[in-house]
Structure formats: structure tokens, C-alpha cells
């Protein structure tokens, strides 16, 4: 973030020149103006307009009647909204630790220069490029009774597969399994790049001390990637908090709203029942929750940069 003017390598002479070059000029603004126009109209304005809408009984086209905090009171009295907050946390709890631990496990196993490791890395990342539509389609076919892959596998052992997406106790777990399958590539890659940044000579020193592999793992590898671990956790919390497509496409939020996350509540409220104000209020609550996690991410990455 160094000011361009004070670049350390500049000599006194060229610094005097660069003062001239980098003097503030209005026409320089033209370079950033196209982006800033879109940024202001499609991000900054909607952000504040959304907050404004959340205080109104709004419809599709206008903000309608001002109702103060009424939408927020309605939200907290709505058992389905409270359920959706709980569902979202439950989903994060199911997916984030699994993604971090499986990702770490795969990174540790596949951090080597062999061809088979490269092929497996490519395989584990491949699902990440698919869209949520394809992923949910694949997993609904896996979970579907009788015809599904899971039924077939259970059938091999003469057992009956659980009805993952229909059972109230299992539906969210089914969505979580599909999500971990979809998202495992990113944590694995983040861990891999962290592992590759550990200086090799530490390992050589450990080998000279006759440290065994467990000792090396516990006292060198894992402490070195502690920060990446926290980073992965926070990135995944922010990401998984925004669950929508999987729940909408796999269960429609059912059975009995048990798999309805906050974003799906917003979709139902604002874009199906067209209760725009209430939907906007729910978005603000989601925004607040995500902001807390994003701030944690900022703090962690900044400390990493300082270190």
C-alpha cells in the first residue's frame, strides 16, 4: 500500500520528476470513472436502498409505506425465520469442519511430485468447476430411492439405504454431503500451497534429529499452516453461510422447513411472496452475520501480511 510517490529506490533527481508526474489531476479520474459509475449504481446505492427498503412495506416497484422497525419485529416473531437461522448455523457446523479436515488430509497425502498425486489432486478439484445445478442433480440421483447409486451400494450389502433427502433428520446431512463433495477442492488447494511454502531445511534439520513422521507432522507441519487453517475455516464459513442453490434444488427447504437456510427464506419472501420489505430486513440480518465473519478474515489475512 506504499504511496507511489515515495518509492524507496528512486534517486533524489527522479523523485523530483515523479512529483511532477504524479501530481493530482482531474483527467486521471477518467480511468476509474467507468468502474466507479457501475460500482456506485449497482453496489453502493442498492446497499443503502436495501436498508431503506427494510423499513418499508415495499412492493416490486417502489418503497411503499414507511413502517419503521416493523419488518424486523415480524422476522423475529416468525418461527420459520428463526428456524432458517438455526438451519444455516447447523449447515455451517456440518460442512465447515468437514471441509477443513478432509481438505487438510488430502493436502497432506497428495503433497508430492508424483504423477498419481497430480491426477488425484485434479480429480478432487474437478467438482469445484461444476455449477450448483449439476451438482445437486448428481446428488439427487445418488440419493434417490431404488434407482439411486446409494441404494445400489446398500443393496450390495443387502441393506436398505436411508432416504436422505426425505427424512427430517437426514435431509440437511444429505445437503451437507453434496456440498462437501462440491467444495472440497478449494480447501485442499489452499492447504497445498501453504504446505509448499514451509522451508525445506526445517524438515532436513528434523530428519537429522531422527524425528519420526508423526513428530514432524505435529511439531513442524501443522504449526506452520495454523494460519492457513484459520483462513480456510473463515472463508468456508462466509461461503457456506450463503447456502441457497443446494437447499432450493435438492429439498425446496423441506421437509417441514428443516433445510431452509436464510437465503432461501429471503428468496421465498422477496421473490415468491413479493414481501419485499420483509425480505430486505432478512437480507440485512444475513449481511450483518456475514460481515462479522468477513471482518475476522480481514484481521487474519492482515496479520499474515505483517508477519
Amino acid at each position, binding site marked *: 500500500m506504499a504511496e507511489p510517490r515515495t518509492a524507496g529506490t528512486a534517486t533524489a533527481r527522479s523523485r523530483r520528476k515523479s512529483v511532477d508526474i504524479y501530481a493530482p489531476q482531474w483527467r486521471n479520474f477518467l*480511468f476509474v470513472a*467507468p468502474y466507479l459509475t457501475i460500482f456506485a449504481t449497482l453496489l453502493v446505492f442498492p446497499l443503502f436502498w436495501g436498508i431503506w427498503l427494510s423499513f418499508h412495506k415495499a412492493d416490486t416497484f417502489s418503497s411503499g409505506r414507511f413502517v419503521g422497525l416493523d419488518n424486523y419485529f415480524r422476522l423475529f416473531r416468525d418461527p420459520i425465520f428463526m428456524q432458517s437461522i438455526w438451519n444455516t448455523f447447523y449447515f455451517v457446523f456440518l460442512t465447515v469442519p468437514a471441509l477443513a479436515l478432509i481438505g487438510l488430509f488430502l493436502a497432506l*497425502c497428495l503433497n508430492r511430485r508424483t504423477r498419481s498425486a497430480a491426477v488425484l489432486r485434479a480429480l*478432487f478439484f474437478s467438482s469445484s468447476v461444476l455449477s450448483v445445478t449439476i451438482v445437486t442433480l448428481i446428488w439427487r440421483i445418488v440419493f434417490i430411492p431404488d434407482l439411486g*447409486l446409494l441404494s445400489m451400494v446398500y443393496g450390495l450389502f443387502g441393506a436398505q439405504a436411508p432416504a436422505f433427502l426425505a427424512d427430517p433428520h437426514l435431509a440437511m446431512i444429505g445437503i451437507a454431503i453434496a456440498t462437501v463433495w462440491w467444495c472440497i477442492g*478449494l480447501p485442499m488447494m489452499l492447504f497445498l500451497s501453504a504446505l509448499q511454502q514451509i522451508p525445506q531445511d526445517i524438515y532436513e534439520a528434523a530428519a537429522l534429529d531422527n524425528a519420526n513422521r508423526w513428530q514432524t507432522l505435529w511439531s513442524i507441519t501443522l504449526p506452520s499452516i495454523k494460519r492457513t487453517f484459520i483462513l480456510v475455516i473463515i472463508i468456508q464459513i462466509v461461503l457456506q453461510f450463503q447456502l441457497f442453490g443446494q437447499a432450493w*434444488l435438492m429439498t425446496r427447504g423441506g421437509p417441514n422447513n428443516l433445510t431452509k437456510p436464510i437465503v432461501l427464506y*429471503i428468496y421465498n419472501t422477496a421473490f415468491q411472496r413479493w414481501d419485499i420489505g420483509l425480505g430486505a430486513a432478512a437480507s440485512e440480518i444475513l449481511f450483518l452475520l456475514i460481515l462479522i465473519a468477513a471482518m475476522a478474515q480481514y484481521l487474519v489475512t492482515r496479520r499474515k501480511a505483517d508477519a
Partner: protein
Amino acid sequence: MASHNSEIIGRSFGDRVLFGLVILLALVMAGPVLYVIALSLKDNKELMVDPHSVFHMPYTIKNYIDTIGTSNVFSWVFNSIIVAGGLTVFTLILSSLAGYGFARLNFPGRAVLFVIVLLGLAVPEQAVLIARHQIFSWLGLHNSYPGLILPGLSSAFGVFLMTQYFRAIPKELDEAAILDNASRFRVFWKVLLPLTVPAQATLGIFTFLGAWNDYFWPLISATKKEMFTLTVGIASTQMNFAQSQGIGFLMAQAVFAGAPILIIYLFFQKYIVTAVSGAAVR
């Protein structure tokens, strides 16, 4: 796999257990995809009579011929190419210009504006969706290509990435050119932009992939069938397939929709992985 064993497993028992676990996970990754492909190659009637027939001959490409002949999948692919391609091109243009501006030029309010743009990184899509939807209703932009492309252009990530990249280029390069009386735009276009190709590739891949796979905004903005993108279109045909007679056909459509991106991934794997994981850490 036997020939690779010596590479991946060491000698100890523990290594073998780990190897077994990785292979098991690899099967979990690949199995569902292979199963869907197998289903797509089966005749619908045969599947209805005996689900287990998916594991043996005869296979047929009839479902794919039907997909090409009857479904809307081509027009959805076309829409997705326009939307993801357009978004990528405009993102690269806007982000490069703004990145150069923030990194190299000075204008009143620059520092404050840059901090505001950075704060934009923390705003999740859901916080602005409803207001955006209203704005696009006012402007009559729903069910149009601009309506699908414009929201993605507001993302601050590209500007952030390009600013970082321009800052890392030694300043002597453009100072020399400017002292030769080249205009700011000329310096940007002729001297610096060619140096940013790696960053353009990262940003381009990341933007294209994100737009290609985006589901929420197209779902609420493109409500007419002819404006569906691939994600929305495929989702619209796939509900309630438990009762459906044509599961092989639906699977063929899905494979048809998922294959292009997987093939691109096979060829550009290294770049895609770098782009996606680089973007996550930002």
C-alpha cells in the same frame, strides 16, 4: 492403479491405510459422476423395468440425440456464453482501467475512493439483491443480456487484483515513457497492459467460471424461458424427476450441460486452480 502404488505408498502399514482412504475418497468423487453418465446412456424403458440394468449392456446414445433434437439446451448454452463472455470482457476492461488509475495515477480523492472500493469486497450479493432487482425493474432490464451482465460488473475483486498487479510493476518503466511525452493512456495501453497478461488470465478465468455457474441472479432476473442461462434452464427441467419417465434423457441433458466446463478444466487445470485459490485468499 497397481503401477502407481510404489509412488504413493511407502512401506509402512500406516501408509497403506492412508492410501486406501484417499482411494476411497477418490471413488466417492468419481462414482456419482460416472453413475450419471451411465444412466444417460440407458434406454428409459429399460431403466423403469430394471434399475440395475444401468450396470450392464446395452447402452445407447439415443438420449443424447433426443437432447440435441428437442431440448432448449442449445439456446441456454448460447445465453450462458453471451452472459459469461460479456461479463468477462467488460470486467477485464473496467478492472484494468481502474487498476491502472488507482495504482499509478493521482486524482483528487483517490485514497478515499480506493478504500471505499475495498470495503465493497465485504458486501455479499444477498445484501444488494433485492434493491438491485427493483432497480432493474425500474430500468426494464430483466430478461435481457445487459440485465444479466451488469450486476457482476460491480464486483470490486477485479479492481483490487489489477491494482495490486499494476503496483508490482517497476515504476521506472512508465516513468521513462511519460518523460518521452507519451500520454497516460498510451503508457497504459502500450507499456503496462501487455505486462499484466497473467493477472488478466487469472481474473478472466475466475470471472467466467463464476458467471457461468451463477444461479441466484439469473433465477430472479431471467424469468422467460428464452432468456434462461444454462444453470437456470437445466434446473427448470429437473424438478420432480422421481416421477419422471425420462430419467436417462434428463441425465443426458445434465451431462451435456456439465461436459464443456469439465473439458475446459482438463485443458486449463493449472490456470483454473491458481485463479480460484488465488481469488479466495485475495
